[in-house]
């Protein structure tokens, strides 16, 4: 965990809601693991006040760089989308536990919902031996699907769903997963990130098929380092109902550990 200044290399608009923010901070880039995140100060001043957490989306340690995927949600993300090359951002990272990597013989399947693509794309980059495996990505509409060229160069098979059917399968990404698991599921290891309702369904399908599943959670966060307990999520803790911190104990949890209701 380091606090440092990152240099903004540029932003790239990926659709009406998404931007890619390219940053340079070699000390952080070299440590970053898939599923970990940075906690960054958007701007000087008191509004927005708190830092914002973003998963690593892509890293290039040889150049000391990494990308964050910014989905426009409010003032903080809008300000980030407007950063110019040469500006600096104060950031703390890498934070959180990251995704455990598959054991030999396990076949990873990735399931993203919306902006949940962010950490899973980096995981797909790292899991080079899983090329040819399936990456499911669901969104509301065509404009929220991008990165298709990057996926084809990575070698993962991308299967897309949209709620309005404007591209790919019309429906939910969990429908695609369910259909897939009903046929081939031996040795599957599921990784997922996205909205709560979708994660809950992925967790249910994994449980039903007795498959291990890692979920990456998000939540309102204050400190980002485990001190404040603001980002608590209800979990089974040593067999009892309790809380874990998304920032420190997570953001990646075993689907079985999380209390979904």
């Amino acid at each position: 965990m380091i606090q440092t200044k990152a240099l903004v290399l540029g932003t790239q608009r990926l659709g009406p809601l998404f931007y890619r923010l390219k940053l340079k901070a070699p000390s952080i880039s070299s440590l970053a693991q898939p599923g970990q995140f940075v906690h960054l100060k958007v701007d000087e001043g008191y509004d927005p006040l708190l830092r914002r957490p973003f998963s690593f989306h892509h890293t290039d340690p040889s150049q000391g760089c990494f990308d964050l995927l910014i989905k426009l949600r409010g003032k903080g993300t809008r300000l980030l989308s407007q950063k110019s090359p040469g500006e600096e951002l104060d950031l703390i990272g890498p934070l959180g536990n990251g995704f455990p990597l598959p054991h030999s013989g396990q076949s990873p399947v990735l399931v993203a919902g919306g902006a949940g693509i962010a950490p899973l794309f980096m995981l797909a980059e790292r899991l080079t031996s899983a090329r040819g495996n399936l990456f499911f990505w669901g969104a509301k509409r065509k404009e929220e699907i991008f990165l298709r060229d990057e996926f084809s160069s990575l070698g993962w098979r991308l299967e897309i769903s949209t709620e309005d059917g404007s591209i790919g399968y019309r429906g939910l990404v969990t429908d695609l997963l369910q259909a897939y698991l009903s046929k081939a599921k031996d040795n599957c290891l599921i990784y997922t990130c996205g909205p709560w309702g979708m994660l809950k369904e992925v967790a249910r399908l994994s449980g039903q098929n007795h498959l291990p599943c890692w979920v990456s959670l998000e939540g309102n966060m204050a400190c980002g380092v485990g001190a404040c307990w603001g980002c608590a999520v209800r979990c089974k803790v040593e067999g009892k109902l309790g809380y874990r911190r998304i920032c420190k104990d997570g953001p990646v949890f075993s689907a079985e550990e999380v209390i979904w209701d």
Partner: protein
Amino acid sequence: MGLKVDLSVSLGSLKLRNPVLAASGCFGFGDEYSPLVDLNLLGGLITKAVSLNPTPGNPPPRVVETPCGMLNSIGLANPGLKGFLREKLPFLRSLTVPIIVNVAGGRLWEYVEVVKGLDKEDGVDGYEINISCPNVEKGGMEFSSDPKIAFKLVSSLRKVTSKPLIVKLSPNLGNIVPVAKVVEEAGADALSLINTLIGMAIDVRTKRPILARGTGGLSGPAIKPVALALVWKVAQAVEIPIVGVGGIFTSEDAIEFILAGSTAVQVGTANFVDPQTMPKIIEELRDYCVQEKIKRISDLIGGLEYG
């Protein structure tokens, strides 16, 4: 060469090398921030609340940002007295700065048990008694809102410890002065002013409060003027030192609190925004004293030129 500045201050028998303390709940038990901050630079560290039994805390969402501030409803989540002694105190003991344990409880006897359980421990240099948490059903606020109950609690604690007792008061009262006075009379060594203000945020799409518990405690720059006014008011009513807390982000903020009558200050929400805030404030306090030719920062306490 420059003026040699004395930044030390005292809270009763507790000597601080500088007046900047980490506020309870905003700096965990120190270990969480140790990779980022040299904790031994601080004036002292006030731990997250410790209650007799482990406390899981409130359902999420527990925090939300508001303009120039944040609401929290953590609910005093902590490992309990035994967990604190086993998991947290050994690290705190390794630091060279005073450690003040924030103590919370649902009933009077629970506060007493926690203080008794800590009192013989090395590395516990004093207590901050939390009688002002707005985020729990029992205890907390009720001890602050009734001067008789506050008196009984503080005098009971006074009987079981000779270590410094700092009592943290709530701003969520019509008049804070009567409670401040009885707490002083009951034997407190200092007062911490203020805990968070009760606040609320609503999601207009779901038409529900954003925090699961409905309301929470407001902190950050938004509450600084309120805290400052209360410190100033209470400073004129009591003799014991006041520890100012509420939206302190810069050395100027800290100096304002000292001028209003604070002997020391606490930094809370600002740690989340920038973990370097406390070391920066300490350095800048020194610079300010040099520029203003102030030899001892304690000479500034209550130096407001007004009234």
